[in-house]
């Protein structure tokens, strides 16, 4: 069977998404910036080193514990800029709304966008609004684009991981994805889960203040940590080994994952980052991360190796080792 249609899998952030991008989009818009496949494009404009990115938000439900589609739309784009080491400055925003969408919901979304923008220190400077007939979109979709400036001397990209580097994670895994699932129609269950959606640009600035030797920063959003590390291993042509017992996961997330048959390593985060840097700096950077409210649970979770280029290996608690592959398909529930 061959697919002649776009399937939900193609939007899941895993292997199918990558194939769609590589086979359909990249060849069409061929240019060196796109080909790098990083969170933001980085280019020189009149001597300024700029980062530019865009992202669309279609989360369901639109309001959830710890945030809403508005805070997500600001934080997501701010974080994509920050992951290139950029200080974000200006955002654009586009709304596509369904006819009949309650104005008070829109106002609540705008309020949380304003708050998130204030926290991140960015301004929303241009925008667009479209309304479509009922049913043509589900409630509200938001697109944001952002532009930021990269300080001189930094080159942070997925291609830069080197054997011997340390892998740091800024905090617990799976909080955002499990929160969304727990509130989704048909699955709703009571829990203390809360999304981790947060702007990480200040945390990144603090990390960068320790020196210019940061090789990779990446926020493990859709597809989770496992997919993000696979992307980096592929881009840098290195192997990455992580240690299960060091990975911070909340008990509530662990429990919800077991019930739903999900693996937190593949669940989306919206306020976490992975930092890859020389071992010699790991301790200093970890200390800096732990001082930031968004990095309190930061941990050293693994190291970059020369062996098994392009692959990620997980050392399990009982001492076995296994491949940690990229997400394939959407993470689906267990059935028995």
């Amino acid at each position, binding site marked *: *069977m061959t*697919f002649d*249609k*776009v*399937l*939900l*899998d193609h939007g899941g952030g895993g*292997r*199918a998404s990558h*194939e769609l991008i590589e086979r359909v989009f990249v060849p069409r818009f061929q240019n060196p910036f796109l080909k790098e496949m990083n969170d933001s494009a980085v280019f020189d404009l009149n001597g300024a080193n700029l980062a530019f990115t865009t992202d669309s938000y279609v989360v369901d439900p639109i309001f959830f514990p710890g945030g809403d589609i508005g805070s997500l739309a600001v934080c997501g784009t701010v974080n994509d800029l920050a992951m290139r080491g950029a200080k974000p400055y200006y955002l654009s925003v586009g709304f596509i709304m369904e006819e009949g969408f309650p104005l008070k919901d829109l106002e609540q979304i705008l309020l949380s966008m304003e708050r998130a923008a204030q926290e991140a220190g960015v301004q929303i400077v241009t925008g667009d609004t479209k309304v479509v007939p009922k049913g043509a979109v589900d409630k509200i979709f938001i697109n944001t684009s952002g532009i930021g400036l990269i300080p001189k001397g930094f080159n942070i990209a997925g291609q830069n991981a080197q054997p011997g580097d340390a892998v740091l994670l800024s905090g617990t895994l799976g909080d955002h994805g499990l929160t969304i699932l727990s509130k989704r129609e*048909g*699955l709703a269950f009571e829990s203390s889960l809360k999304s981790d959606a947060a702007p990480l640009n200040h945390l990144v600035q603090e990390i960068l203040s320790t020196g210019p030797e940061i090789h990779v920063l990446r926020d493990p959003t859709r597809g989770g940590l496992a997919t993000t590390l696979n992307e980096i291993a592929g881009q840098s042509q290195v192997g990455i080994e992580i240690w299960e*017992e060091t990975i911070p996961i909340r*008990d509530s997330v*662990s*429990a919800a994952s*077991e*019930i*739903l*048959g999900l*693996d937190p390593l593949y669940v989306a985060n919206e306020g976490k980052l992975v930092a890859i840097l020389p071992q010699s700096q790991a301790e200093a950077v970890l200390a800096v991360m732990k001082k930031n409210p968004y990095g309190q649970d930061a941990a050293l979770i693994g190291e970059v190796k020369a062996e098994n280029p392009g*692959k990620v290996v*997980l*050392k*399990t*608690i*009982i*001492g*076995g*080792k*296994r*491949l940690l*592959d990229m997400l*394939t*398909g959407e993470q*689906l*529930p*267990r*059935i*028995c």
Partner: protein
Amino acid sequence: MKHLSEYRDKELAQKLIAAIRDQSKRPIRLMEVCGTHTVSIFRHGIRQVLPPTIQLISGPGCPVCVTATEEIDRAVKLARNPGVMITTFGDLVRVPGSQSSLQMERASGADVRMVYSTFDALKLARENQNKKVIFLAIGFETTAPTIAAAVLEAKLLGLENYFILSAHKLLPPALEVLLNSGDLNLQGFIYPGHVTTIIGTGAYEQVAEKYHLPGVVCGFEPVDILETILMLVRQIEQGQAKVEIQYKRGSSAIGNPKALNVLNRVFVPCDAPWRGLGTIPDSGLALRPEFRAFAAEDHFDLQVPPAQDHPGCACGEVLRGIKTPLQCLLFRTACRPDSPIGPCMVSTEGTCAAYFKYNE
């Protein structure tokens, strides 16, 4: 769920591994019947910590994997009916039938919804009275009682737009067929904790007696599995063939009579097609006559042409434990999780998906 950590305890696991290495002398093949065990074994790297004397092979215990192609074809045909909403557990939407899958039908406009429970399907039926809501009921003795309870509730509510297409499977008849095939050179079974919670150990006692094969009912965490393997090694080294329960916190010898009672009120055993094993007498579940108002096959045309499986697909042999995925020519080449040919590559509990994902 706070108690999870004790079953993932590093020191306890190390002690069990050392005991297994110490006590396992003769080469043995153990079959983990259940797909959840297969995944747990791979996920925790259990195969690499075992001595070379112990080989683990996967059995027919993944409900998506044993669903026959003709059953998928019928579901695809149902999905094409106007006014029909198909509801099902997640993995099934991606399993290829002869020509199409539910996922492809959904992309072409069919109303296919993923649910976590048949009660969600019941809710959808109540909220969408203009639609005929069909639940594709797959799974073993674990899921069947809940589905039976939903049918009882649908009858109580007088729902006229809720149907189930039953593709349930019963585990004991399949084990019997496997053992009679003579292909397996097997020394012991790792039995599924969850199924046993419902059916008890009666069926396993018969296997132990008739085939002189020991079995241990096992939980799903790494410490559970290691302890079970140790219990099997001890029995085999001593020439015993008993049924033991490692998963004492969840299973007992008598099972759950209340759940079985609900199951038997609604369903009656029927012949069922299994992928890889053919049609096995009394290995499926059909709605009893008084519940036929909910039987999709009585209300829709489900005639489909004979199913066509990919000629190279070895899912059947994999499910029977006589081939590993590595011996399938399609594995990792034509058949991958993102473009699966057989169901064992689709299901998260499928053996091929586990081999692929964890790079065996």
